[in-house]
């Protein structure tokens, strides 16, 4: 829309840090970067030139989530008890059940939201952290685009948790059928929460601070 009005100083690549200015993390007011523990004059939020301890926090969250990714996918998340059979479901077998009941679009959706997205998120965050740690980030633009997609899509992984909450609440018609949660659900929910926190604690500007070229 009004894109043309944003006259950037791209050719010179002037950053806020160069000018001693920063964008308030909360209300995005341009403020003078000053001593620690300063507060934004408009919204009163604490000001930081970069999010404090971003790399260490993100790295520990990514590692914890990666460890939990295995039990989240290998352990059963729910147990179905019906008159003549008992069944444990993992995340993946839930996808298969959806597919075999003919709801292909939903099955594909859940497969992406619950299995592919958390894995992509872990790989991408790990890889970005490694590149920033080495101090040389190639393809910063593509990486930041990927990071944003993954950050945006991440919350959709919760849909399996919500489906489980409805299934376990509704299907309590003993002796006909009962559905109960199983420990895999704990690990799975933890993976989603930890990866969301990891994306939130990562400061995207670090990607650009050590970009190999523009």
């Amino acid at each position, binding site marked *: 829309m009004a894109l043309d009005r944003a006259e950037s100083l791209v050719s010179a690549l002037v950053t806020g840090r160069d000018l001693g200015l920063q964008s308030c993390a909360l209300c995005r007011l341009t403020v003078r970067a000053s001593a620690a523990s300063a507060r934004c004059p408009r919204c009163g939020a604490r000001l930081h030139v970069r999010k404090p301890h971003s790399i260490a926090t993100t790295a520990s969250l990514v590692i914890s989530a990666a460890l939990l990714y295995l039990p989240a996918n290998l352990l059963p998340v729910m147990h179905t008890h019906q008159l003549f059979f008992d069944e444990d479901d993992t995340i993946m077998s839930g996808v298969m059940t*959806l597919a075999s009941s003919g709801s292909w679009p939903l099955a594909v959706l859940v497969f992406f939201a619950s299995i592919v997205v958390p894995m992509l998120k872990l790989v991408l965050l790990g890889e970005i952290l490694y590149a920033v740690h080495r101090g040389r980030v190639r393809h910063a633009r593509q990486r930041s685009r990927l990071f944003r997609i993954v950050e945006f899509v991440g919350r959709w992984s919760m849909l399996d948790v919500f489906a489980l909450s409805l299934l376990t609440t509704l299907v309590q018609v003993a002796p006909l059928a009962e559905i109960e949660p199983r420990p895999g659900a704990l690990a799975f929910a933890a993976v989603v929460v930890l990866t969301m926190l990891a994306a939130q604690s990562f400061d995207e500007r670090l990607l650009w601070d050590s970009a190999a070229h523009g």
Partner: protein
Amino acid sequence: MSALIICHACDLVHRLDAVSGPARIRCARCRAEILRTTEASIDTPIAWAMSALVLFIIANAYPLVAMKVSGFTRLTTLLGAALGLYDQGYESVAGLVFFTTFLVPLAQLGVLLWVLIAIKLGQPRAEPIASLRLLEPLRPWGMVEVFLLGALVALTRLSTLATIVPGIGLIAYGSFMLMLSSLVTTTPREQLWRWIAQSRS
């Protein structure tokens, strides 16, 4: 008059002429949205917020869905879905469901309504503004639309073994989602804080 705007995502400095009317401006280097303004007056988001509040109350007062299977009928409400996990000993997952589908959406709505009305009435005091500050990091944790898709997945899985009847609660919750997202799009961050700064000066 021109102003310097710094991209929150890559720290690049932009010089920007005064923006009038609705605009959406992206960072020239990393394409992050650095400024969005709307033409809507403050009455528009207040109207969205009020209708969202009514729908949220209806969504919680009526059952989301009913399941019928050989003579048995089971109903659940929104809070009932979190409670079901709690009763089975999964308190932390139940808490997460309660937090993301009830607490955060309600807080988001309540705080925005409080702040907007305070601006409308003149001098907003410190409390609504402090609560708006607390709300900001919670933004990604409101998951109304994700819950609705999760409900679709659950009901599809059940439809092979039972009859599923969607309730008034589900329809109200779906409409609540639409109202809440209209509220969020009519209160862009920059504009909200500008309204606050204007009404304080």
